[in-house]
């Protein structure tokens, strides 16, 4: 039986731009257009754009919208006008269902942007929890398309199409009107660079893609996106985080606010934190040539200590990776990563590998 891949509204435009299309969690998306190294360079030094229409949008509306979101989030959801908050959606066991951003449109209305592979599960989870609140949750994922415009020149370029967006603070949202339709722009991204993500209805997104192409923006694929996000120390849900890991283990303790009155997973997190964690998501930089990948074993003092969950070749740092390994190995220590049967020395480092002005 052949599985029909879902296509974004930009699929044809991506193919026209030379996109090499692959199956990504059931979506047909471009892994690269030009070369991954050239696309990475464009985003780090100028500007690149990504079709991220596969990502999900859940709208939470009602008198208790904020109260509801505080309950399903381990982080404190900000409720200032247009403020966004990165948070994790947890199980009762305090483990990670998804990571997401909630944007405050007003005190009774929030837009939550979630990972593509988790839309259905997040929506079902929100609906289940919503019954106890005066709130309604709708899944608008099929309605919206989204382009992420990323890089040091991205916001300046976006300002040519959306005058004034240059004044939008980091992690804020703004309602926009573009090509005769209403949408949103957020000053967010998944690359470690400044930039915006623009949501428009499916029918209008290709006009935006073409306008950005005319402004010289380089189309970039999932390959470059994965290198950029790993350099920036961002989690890939499903790989670096899943329903067996708490935010503490995933190196995201800052996302958990135990001072909050109550939220799903709080009791479990308090207990687990008190007991301590044997393993955590650790970061590694290869000392010799090679490319570490998901699934490679990590050895410390000759003993297997863990497995990589993400790894790649970074044009900036060469072989970099993250994986769950003993939480007691000191930063700076040498480990070995087994790649194709060859043990390659690597240094335990802190994340992010790449840190810039954002």
């Amino acid at each position, binding site marked *: 039986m052949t599985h029909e891949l879902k296509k974004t509204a930009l699929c044809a435009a991506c193919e026209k731009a030379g996109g090499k299309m692959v199956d990504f969690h059931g979506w047909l998306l471009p892994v690269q257009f030009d070369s991954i190294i050239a696309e990475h360079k464009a985003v780090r030094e100028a500007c690149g754009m990504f079709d991220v229409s596969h990502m999900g949008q859940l709208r939470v509306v009602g008198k208790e919208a904020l109260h509801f979101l505080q309950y399903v989030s381990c982080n404190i959801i900000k409720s200032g006008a247009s403020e966004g908050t990165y948070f994790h959606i947890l199980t009762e066991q305090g483990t990670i269902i998804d990571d997401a951003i909630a944007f405050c449109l007003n005190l009774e209305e929030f837009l939550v942007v979630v990972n593509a592979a988790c839309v259905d599960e997040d929506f079902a989870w929100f609906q289940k929890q919503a019954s106890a609140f005066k709130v309604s949750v709708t899944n608008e994922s099929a309605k919206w398309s989204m382009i992420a415009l990323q890089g040091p020149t991205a916001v300046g370029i976006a300002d040519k199409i959306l005058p004034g967006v240059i004044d939008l603070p980091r992690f804020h949202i703004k309602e926009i009107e573009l090509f005769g339709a209403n949408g949103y722009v957020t000053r967010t991204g998944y690359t470690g660079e400044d930039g915006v993500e623009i949501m428009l209805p499916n029918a209008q997104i290709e006009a935006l893609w073409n306008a950005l192409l005319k402004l010289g923006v380089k189309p970039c694929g999932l390959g470059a996106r994965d290198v950029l996000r790993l350099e920036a120390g961002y989690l890939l849900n499903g790989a670096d985080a899943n329903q067996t890991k708490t935010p503490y283990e995933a190196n995201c303790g800052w996302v958990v606010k135990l001072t909050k009155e109550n939220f799903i997973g709080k009791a479990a997190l308090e207990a687990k934190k008190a007991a301590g964690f044997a393993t955590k998501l650790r970061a590694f930089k290869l000392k010799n040539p090679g490319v570490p990948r998901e699934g490679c074993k990590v050895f410390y003092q000759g003993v297997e200590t863990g497995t990589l969950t993400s790894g790649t070749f970074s044009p900036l740092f060469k072989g970099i990776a993250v994986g769950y390994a003993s939480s007691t190995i000191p930063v700076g220590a040498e480990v070995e990563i087994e790649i*194709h049967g060859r043990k390659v020395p690597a240094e335990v480092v802190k994340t992010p590998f790449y840190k810039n002005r954002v």
Partner: protein
Amino acid sequence: MYNEENCRFLKTHEWAFVEGENAVVGISNHAQEEISDIVFVDLPKVGRQVKAGENCCVIESVKSASEIYAPVSGEIVAVNEALNADPALVNREPHAGGWLFKIKMADPNEFNALLDFAAYNASIGK
């Protein structure tokens, strides 16, 4: 050197030509286009004995690792040291400066049994 008449191929995109008693091995232009962005070549050790069809080298791109198979049996007698400093040479010159290794052939008949240029092209739909 590589040319369409003297080269033989594997379906897995390796090419080889005979130089004295050795077979010089590399990957096709089609293969380097598919792999793209080559960032590391894990070359075999000189002196290693390989069998025809044996995985003996790994080409790493940003996105993936590709195994390279020995077209013929024999001993690895040389590897392309230039690839250690410049692995992207395989992308730029897959048929020349980007060669991978040389095998001292145990049985030259194995070479003759490989795909010719037309048969290889047919296998990649060209």
